[in-house]
């Protein structure tokens, strides 16, 4: 059953609007409760991939009685196939900073951080110049708010919010147990709002044009637009802003090279969708009415029929094996054994039925791993092994 939804392009995020001072002025003149309501009614969900309602996050943090609170922008973009946050910070950093100041105003924070991955060191100087402008603005209007860039040091897992806090606290980036959630117990044990770069950039649109404008885009449960990082076997790799809710079939019509065999939605921790399921797959957050709906941080990697899915899986597993923080056994040992396992099947040292054992292992990891990394290895592993079993064996 094909959805009749067409691909709808949009241009909000990268639209250059040299009016942040007016927008911020307007935001700061409103009371925090109204801003929270605006965000909640826009139904903006976290654009890093997890999809938590942004308005709710701000609301919970605002209700905490603490004197010290933090706003953190998560720019530790490490998911394979994702590169939208770099582009946002390069082209429209003022939108992200406006949103951070707005968030500080709403929750009552006096300090903010941008956790920038080390690979994006080249963005740092320009970003700090823009921060200076904002700090000057805040000083002028007697708003006490400082923003610092905190450089990561090369660890995929630090994109996980609690691992990011650990890293900022000068420790190994090992995720914490949740709950407590960041809104009550974040950086240095203080209530913290941590948002993805793109999420913050969307709030600029919402505060400027109103929640309705944003809400009217997309489909039920998946409102608004989203940036997609398109790479792999496509004639036009790059970043595209599209309305949520599109069918993968429409996406492939637009971006495929005519020979698309499968699309990896959501990077290595996402799902691989084979050609026969394109029409039944929609891109958006899970909802009751949307059927098969895949949430994504925006990574869309296309593979054509010349690609071996075994090599793809091998590459992902090596990635996970290296990036697993090693803290919990299911993930540390699981990632190693999965990689050893598929190599053994490929070399015919293990029978094909061994793949089923490995699938059970990923299921165990899904239930027992401490954080999203170990839990989501099952996504790509099972979607590749189940759909391209023959390629794993021969």
């Amino acid at each position, binding site marked *: 059953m094909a959805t009749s939804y067409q691909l709808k392009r949009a241009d909000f995020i990268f639209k250059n609007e040299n009016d942040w001072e007016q927008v911020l002025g307007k935001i700061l003149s409103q009371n925090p409760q109204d801003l929270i309501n605006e965000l909640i009614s826009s139904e903006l969900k976290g654009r890093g991939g997890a999809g938590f309602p942004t308005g709710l996050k701000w609301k919970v943090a605002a209700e905490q009685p603490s004197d010290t609170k933090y706003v953190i922008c998560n720019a530790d*973009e*490490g*998911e*394979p*196939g*994702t*590169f939208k*946050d*770099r582009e946002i910070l390069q082209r429209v950093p003022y939108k992200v900073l406006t949103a951070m100041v707005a968030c500080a105003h709403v929750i009552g924070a006096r300090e903010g951080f941008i956790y920038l*991955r*080390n*690979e*994006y*060191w*080249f963005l740092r100087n320009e970003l700090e110049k823009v921060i200076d402008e904002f700090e000057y603005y805040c000083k002028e209007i007697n708003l006490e708010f400082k923003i610092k860039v*905190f*450089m*990561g*040091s*090369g*660890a*995929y897992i630090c994109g996980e919010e609690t691992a990011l806090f650990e*890293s*900022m*606290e*000068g*420790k*190994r*980036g090992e995720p914490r147990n949740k709950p407590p959630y960041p809104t009550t117990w974040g950086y*240095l044990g203080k209530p913290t709002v941590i948002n993805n770069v793109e999420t913050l950039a969307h709030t600029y649109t919402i505060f400027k044009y109103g929640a309705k404008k944003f809400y009217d885009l997309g489909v039920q449960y998946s409102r608004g637009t989203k940036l997609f*990082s*398109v*790479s*792999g*076997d496509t004639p036009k*790799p*790059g*970043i595209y802003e599209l309305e949520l809710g599109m069918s993968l079939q429409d996406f492939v019509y637009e971006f495929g090279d005519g020979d698309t065999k499968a699309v*990896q939605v959501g990077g*290595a921790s996402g799902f691989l969708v084979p050609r026969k399921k394109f029409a039944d797959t929609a891109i958006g957050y899970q909802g009751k009415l949307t059927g098969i709906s895949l949430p994504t941080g925006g990574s869309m*990697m296309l*593979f054509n029929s010349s*690609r071996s899915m075994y*090599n*793809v899986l091998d*590459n*992902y597993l090596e*990635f996970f094996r*290296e*990036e697993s*923080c090693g803290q919990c056994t299911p993930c540390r040992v699981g990632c190693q054994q999965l990689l050893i396992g598929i190599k053994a099947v490929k070399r015919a040292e293990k029978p094909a039925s061994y793949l089923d054992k490995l699938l059970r292992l990923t299921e165990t990891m899904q239930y027992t791993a401490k954080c999203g990394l170990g839990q989501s290895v099952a996504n790509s592993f099972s979607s590749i092994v189940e759909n391209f079993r023959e390629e794993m064996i021969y």
Partner: protein
Amino acid sequence: MSPIQLLIKDLADKYGRNRENLLPIMQGVVEQENYLSEYSMVEIAREMDLPAAEVYGTATFYSFLEVKKMGRFIIRICKTISCAMKGKSQVVFAIQDMLKVNVGETTADGRFSLLETNCLGLCHKAPAMLINHEVYTDLTPERVREILSEYMAK
């Protein structure tokens, strides 16, 4: 005071001596030295009043904080799927051939280290690499030879 001790003291004065300043201080040392030697880690621990094992444990967690001696120019080539699909191996062969080192090694003159790294976030311009903080994209064996020649002249 040795130059490294002095550097660490300056960094600690600049950032502070709390645990949350550990990463910026280690990054500051790596900026100067290209890596964290055992000596600098012990000195950081002393300056910040931390167990040396904690400093070592933290440093070894992060791929951009090397704990073995690195060359002046650290080449980090992306090996994740998008770059792997677009001919990253040929680029690595070209570099290995030109510098006469394998992945993970440093040239005998101590100028270049060749490393593979995970996704650099430049998948639409694959294959991509970093040389120190500098970004190079859309690599081919020819282009990477040109780039390295420029570095060799530096």
